[in-house]
């Protein structure tokens, strides 16, 4: 297990290197640049040159990357001149809020998806199954900005039940107004339910036809006991794997959703940074997402190992 984790960690570091280099190149190739974004379209070439010199943007790309990397190792993610704050401080404020939104959304999605998948598996190829499949697929294919706008229209504008804007301020403020979280969470959860329920459905069907289920029947076990005592644990492991792997998908979902609901998380931060070409913020958020992706897949492997003893021993 330890050797396995060390190997995964080394792979992760390599992946992060490549990701940051690619992002670095891409954002520096964008037309405009931070000086233009900061000083405005009226800025004189002299002003831009002095801005670039002041912030080191006149240096070669590799020099800039190297500087960024060296500072990163020291724990310094840079300074956002747009937000007028260190990037670290920004992330400390924003990251927990996005983690909260993504975490709650995924939790809600999975809590719906697992029973849904099981019900579909038990009623497979019946009208119930087809109906749920249709509904979840329509939701899965819906763009999140559209779904969130529809939800706002129905629940905020027409029914007046829920706020259209997420609570502002620190994470404490966000938590103190849970009603503001309902629509953003609903948006992400509704869209991703199909992702998990499909897996749960096919994995449950697969397990129900296994010999060990016949053994359980031969013991005299009732369907509920077979389901909860035997099938569920075996069937849920692929879903948990998927959970880890779907982390990037969820984070990109929060990006759009945060923008629509003006939720002050990392997604909104990233959106604004992209518009203003705020390099340090863009790089830091990309790095965070890359880390989350790698951590997600390691998490998936560990979950699998915990649930399935065969995997545990294979990696030992």
């Amino acid at each position, binding site marked *: 297990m330890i050797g396995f984790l060390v190997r995964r960690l080394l792979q992760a570091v390599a992946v992060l290197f490549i990701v940051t280099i690619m992002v670095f190149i891409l954002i520096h190739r964008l037309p405009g640049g931070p000086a233009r974004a900061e000083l405005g379209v009226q800025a004189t070439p002299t002003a831009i040159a002095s801005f670039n010199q002041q912030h080191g943007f006149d240096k070669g790309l590799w020099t800039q990357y190297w500087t960024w990397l060296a500072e990163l190792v020291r724990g310094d993610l840079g300074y956002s001149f747009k937000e007028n704050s260190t990037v670290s401080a920004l992330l400390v404020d924003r990251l927990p809020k996005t983690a909260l939104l993504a975490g709650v959304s995924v939790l809600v999605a999975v809590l719906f998806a697992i029973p849904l998948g099981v019900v579909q598996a038990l009623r497979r190829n019946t009208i119930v199954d087809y109906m749920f499949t249709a509904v979840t697929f329509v939701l899965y294919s819906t763009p999140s900005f559209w779904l969130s706008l529809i939800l706002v229209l129905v629940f905020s504008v027409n029914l007046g039940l829920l706020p259209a804007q997420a609570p502002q301020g620190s994470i404490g403020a966000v938590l103190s107004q849970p009603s503001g979280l309902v629509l953003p969470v609903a948006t992400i959860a509704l869209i991703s339910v199909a992702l998990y329920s499909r897996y749960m459905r096919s994995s449950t069907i697969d397990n129900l036809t296994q010999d060990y289920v016949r*053994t359980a029947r*031969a013991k*005299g076990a009732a369907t509920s006991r077979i389901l909860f*005592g035997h099938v569920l*644990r075996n069937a849920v492991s692929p879903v948990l794997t998927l959970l880890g792997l779907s982390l990037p998908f969820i984070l990109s979902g929060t990006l759009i959703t945060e923008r629509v609901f003006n939720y002050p998380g990392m997604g909104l931060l990233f959106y604004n940074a992209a518009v203003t070409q705020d390099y340090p913020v863009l790089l830091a958020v990309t790095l965070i997402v890359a880390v989350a992706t790698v951590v997600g897949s390691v998490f998936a492997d560990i979950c699998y190992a915990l649930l399935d003893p*065969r995997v545990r021993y294979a990696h030992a």
Partner: protein
Amino acid sequence: MAAILEISDLVVDIRSGRSTVRAVDGISLTIEPGRTLGLVGESGCGKSTTGLAVLGLLPAGGKVTSGSIRIDGQDIVGLREAEARAIRGRTVGVVFQDPMTALNPTQRIGAQVAEPLLIHGMANRSSAMKQAVDLLGEVGLSRPAAQAQRFPHELSGGMRQRVMIALALICGPKLLVADEPTTALDVTTQDQILQLFDSLQQSRDMSILLITHDMGVVAGHTDEVAVMYAGRLAEHAATPRLFGGYRHRYTEALLESIPTLDTPRGQRLATIAGLPPNLGGQLAPCRFAPRCAHAAKVCFDAEPSWSEQHSHGYACHLPRRIDTDPITEIAGAPS
């Protein structure tokens, strides 16, 4: 003494899509307490379906169309699901063919063996675990308390089959259905498992329905043999009598296809030509006739009737001739 298992005129239909296959067509069998019946035949002859019908575990689309299955006096055909569950695992235990897949891969074996006791409310958790460990020792696992904590994949095939046997026996069933219990095992392990069946049967006084395609297994470990072909009984007799004086040409063909040590080198092994018929299609009046080396016109004209003497029954127009009947005295066939 009342029979433990009494199958009368059992007909099982299996529907898949629009077509229906009569997998079992009018079988009658009886097993007395403490006896073993071997049910023999090629793949697809309905022997496993008969076993599953006894357990009430027919696959989707399978249904007992007529006849009765009495287990310890109670007809299980048409029982409600809850009533059938009360019998499964408690009065009837089962050992399946493949021990590699028959156990739950993510549950420790002790818990799996103990589960039937909990299902049938026969013990609390700690007592069930204790009984499971004891029984694991009885079926031949060394250090059973430690083994009970292991997962199935940590055990060999033979050991897993022992676990399956313990699981089948934990509630003290009166009948054990063993469906090809040794087919997936290597030969030495096969013999150990069969000997385990014999000794467990003696110590527990239970009846066994041993389903197998292997005449060798049947010869040493059963009291009676029923030979099935294409959903019907071909021949049925006490084991010594059947091996000494088999009459049905299908039984003959099965026995001739077993290699023996005195088969001359280089001689080709006898086989039965062709495959068992598709039960969904047209069947000859004698279902074995198309593959039978002795078949004559009569076999394709009329269905052979069941003739029975000294508890030895068969359905064949042109049975194998036996000059004397030396087995009758020692057979001790149950009536």
